[in-house]
């Protein structure tokens, strides 16, 4: 018996030692990565010195012309986020283009779950050379870039020699560079530059119902309320405003002067009168907003299942013609959505003199391109991403070659596109592969054959300098978006790219978990009528918010805006 216990003890000890050995392997891995990252640092510092002298670039780089990017074929590994409908890398024209025209033979890894891939790759230091459209958040960039040194600092590679296209943009618009630079001055990821003249959110209203009620498009909160009342008169089963508590209520929040865009708009930092504010903690106006929403809920303008309704139910209501107002993600399910629906202008009110909506907050993004410390050719990787920052190149990558550019078919595609008409203002493209029925839509053809990557997230995604050889794809105006919404667009929104320090991120996360839960619970009580929206109750609500650290929480964002963001864009 004693002998058996002894044997068990020995075996248990062996298991524990092997478990420790596993972790020891992990530590070895990180120390190896530290050593490797030191090599990476040496490379980047060399490049920085190269930046200064302009002559210390590897011989394989072609700096004499736009293409090829390398004098002889170089191999690089790249990981790409793959969406449904996107073809396999072997079938995609763009990767063949890179191989033949850029002299870069990419080993493409397509992943459908970027979160899991990032976790395992960073934890095991099994990194690709390039991260492409993998949506590296600000926190991940700081963690894996600044702290773990697994992503290299790209700022040393952005110069006139290596990245002339990017420099052309940043020389003209230095604030774009400021938006993607961390507080320490490093850049760990790049993204895309899209047309800022598109709204961060768009809503639509049933104009046929308005016509039947002899009403114009509402431009004030008062007119909008009257329109919702008219819609409600159409039937007791009508739900004038679609969606849950994070959908249509954003439109109402905007009417009170909050420039916001997030789904969790009440708890996300926004701007009002040029100052950062978290709407749900704003004593000045948020109470009035709550009164309005509570009134809407009581009168049935909002779904009585506001806090539980799901997208499928909303789609069903839209499909059955029971909804008169909703955001863009539901509009596709509305019958006759191109003829009976109109873009809804944003509203003025007693508390907001100017109707405005935040411009596309992804107009300058930085989550879609990064270089790992294990990459042996970071200069070539930067030349590759710089290629995307020329609009004609971007256009070629997204839409493929024209019918006349047969030399660019490269054996991967059989035909190129042509313009549908000779009208210089019409950029509609015709694809033979769509015309012959091989693909139902141009979008499916793009994803399956041309680029297999999402457009709009890397590079210069629109004709910024208006010197492109291609006609620009028309922005959607099917329901009056350009005429109605575009004039209301403002750049006065809180920066989406926020680079807080680790300590700040931890504090913010801790505070937000408590504060957001308090806000959601109390706002729901006010809206549903469980709690009266009186001055006394509102005072108690705001006092409770302050008691759990709301002012400290808000101050992080105010300080970041005043001390970090504004100086970087000025």
């Amino acid at each position: 018996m004693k002998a058996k216990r002894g044997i068990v003890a020995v075996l248990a000890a062996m298991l524990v030692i092997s478990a420790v050995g596993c972790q020891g392997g992990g530590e070895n891995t990180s120390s190896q990565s530290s050593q490797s990252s030191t090599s990476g640092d040496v490379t980047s510092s060399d490049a920085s010195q190269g930046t200064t002298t302009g002559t210390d670039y590897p011989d394989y780089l072609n700096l004499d012309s736009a293409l090829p990017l390398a004098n002889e074929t170089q191999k690089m590994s790249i990981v790409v986020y793959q969406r449904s409908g996107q073809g396999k890398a072997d079938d995609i024209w763009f990767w063949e283009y890179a191989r033949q025209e850029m002299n870069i033979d990419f080993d493409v890894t397509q992943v459908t779950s970027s979160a899991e891939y990032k976790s395992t790759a960073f934890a095991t230091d099994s990194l690709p050379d390039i991260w492409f459209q993998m949506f590296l958040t600000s926190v991940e960039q700081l963690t894996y870039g600044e702290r773990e040194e697994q992503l290299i600092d790209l700022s040393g590679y952005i110069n006139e020699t290596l990245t002339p296209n990017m420099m052309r943009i940043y020389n003209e618009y230095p604030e774009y560079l400021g938006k993607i630079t961390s507080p320490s001055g490093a850049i760990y990821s790049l993204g895309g530059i899209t047309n800022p003249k598109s709204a961060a959110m768009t809503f639509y209203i049933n104009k046929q119902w308005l016509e039947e009620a002899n009403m114009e498009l509402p431009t004030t909160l008062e007119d909008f309320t009257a329109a919702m009342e008219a819609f409600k008169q159409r039937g007791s089963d009508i739900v004038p405003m679609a969606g849950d508590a994070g959908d249509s209520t954003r439109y109402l929040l905007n009417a009170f002067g909050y420039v916001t865009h997030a789904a969790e708009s009440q708890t996300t930092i926004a701007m009002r009168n040029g100052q950062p504010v978290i709407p749900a903690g704003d004593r000045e106006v948020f109470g009035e907003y709550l009164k309005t929403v509570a009134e809407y809920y009581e009168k049935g303008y909002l779904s009585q299942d506001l806090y539980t309704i799901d997208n499928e139910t909303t789609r069903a209501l839209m499909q059955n013609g029971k909804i008169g107002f909703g955001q863009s993600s539901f509009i596709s399910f509305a019958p006759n959505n191109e003829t009976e629906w109109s873009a809804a202008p944003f509203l003025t009110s007693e508390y907001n003199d100017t109707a405005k909506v935040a411009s596309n907050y992804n107009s300058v993004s930085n989550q879609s391109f990064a270089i790992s410390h294990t990459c042996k050719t970071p200069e070539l990787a930067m030349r590759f991403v710089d290629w995307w920052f020329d609009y004609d190149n971007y256009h070629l990558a997204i839409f493929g070659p024209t019918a006349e550019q047969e030399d660019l078919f490269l054996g991967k595609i059989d035909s190129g596109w042509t313009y549908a008409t000779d009208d210089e203002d019409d950029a509609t493209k015709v694809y033979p592969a769509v015309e012959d029925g091989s693909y139902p839509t141009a979008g499916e053809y793009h994803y399956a054959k041309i680029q297999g990557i999402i457009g709009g997230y890397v590079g210069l995604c629109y004709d910024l300098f208006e010197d492109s050889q291609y006609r620009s794809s028309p922005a959607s105006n099917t329901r009056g978006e350009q005429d109605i919404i575009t004039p209301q667009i403002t750049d006065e929104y809180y920066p989406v790219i926020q680079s807080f320090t680790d300590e700040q991120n931890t504090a913010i996360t801790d505070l937000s978990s408590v504060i957001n839960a308090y806000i959601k619970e109390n706002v729901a009580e006010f809206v549903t009528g469980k709690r009266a929206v009186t001055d006394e109750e509102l005072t108690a609500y705001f006092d409770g918010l302050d008691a759990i650290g709301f002012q400290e929480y808000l101050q992080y964002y105010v300080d970041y805006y005043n001390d970090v963001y504004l100086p970087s864009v000025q």
Partner: protein
Amino acid sequence: MASHKAGNLIKKTKADQVFDVFNILICSLIMLIMVYPLYFTVIVSLSSPEAVASGSVYLWPKGFTLEAYQNVFRNNEIWVGYRNTILYTVANTLYCLGLTIPAAYVLTKKYLPFRGAISWYFFITMYFGGGLIPSYILNKALHLVNTPWIMIVGVGVSCYNLIVTRTFFSSNIPDELYESAYIDGATEWQSFIKIALPLSGSILAVMALFNIVGCWNSYYTAMIYITNQDYWPLQMVLRKILILGETAALSLEEMSKDEQEWAIRQSQMVYTMKYALIFISSAPLLVIYPFVQKHFVKGVMIGSVKG
């Protein structure tokens, strides 16, 4: 009380009849609750997208159409996924059975040296595990990542299955049977092949079914370790079509007109295909299950008997 006279018809009392009625009603209700979702899946997959989106499909198909199934079968990835899943399921099941059954048999032998320690060595794995990252490092070092082998040899022995099988062997096959074989000159190997295995039909069926169901539905291992679509199992293909397609139309205002058109069509197509995909992926298991049901029912209780 009903009469229990042997040989006479047992006449049910009124209480028995009332009980029977309630029993049947409750069991019917439970059956409906379990069967209706499956029935709903079938009728929705045969209905038009508009009827499904409007939520008007309840008891029978509306706007009968086979478009969903046509869209599914038109997708070559589905067939590749099917092929891979069948391959992984068969191979992994044989692999797991090949390890689990002999291990369980051996652990029933009281004269096995260090039997207790070996048993504990297996049991500890029920409570402690390395986690995802050490597993990933190990599989990468073994060059299993992004290969079909990761789906086959990933986990060979489930300790729970091992215990159940061991309990079966010790409870259902008396030691005297082995002793009589040894007296006749049988070796251990012969007693395993010619005595234990032939008498283990039910446990083999149960373990095989557990493995088959687990393999058929698994996708997490593929999601973590396999990026090459040619090696994807069926569930990964379905996930790509369903989950990724549902997010297509969420940010229409950020897309070009071509992309909007694609995104809207994608989200509506997914809406229709969802139920067809559920039915197609579940169909093989639904077909197989009636044939192994009796073994399954018997085998489920095996683990409850203490050896």
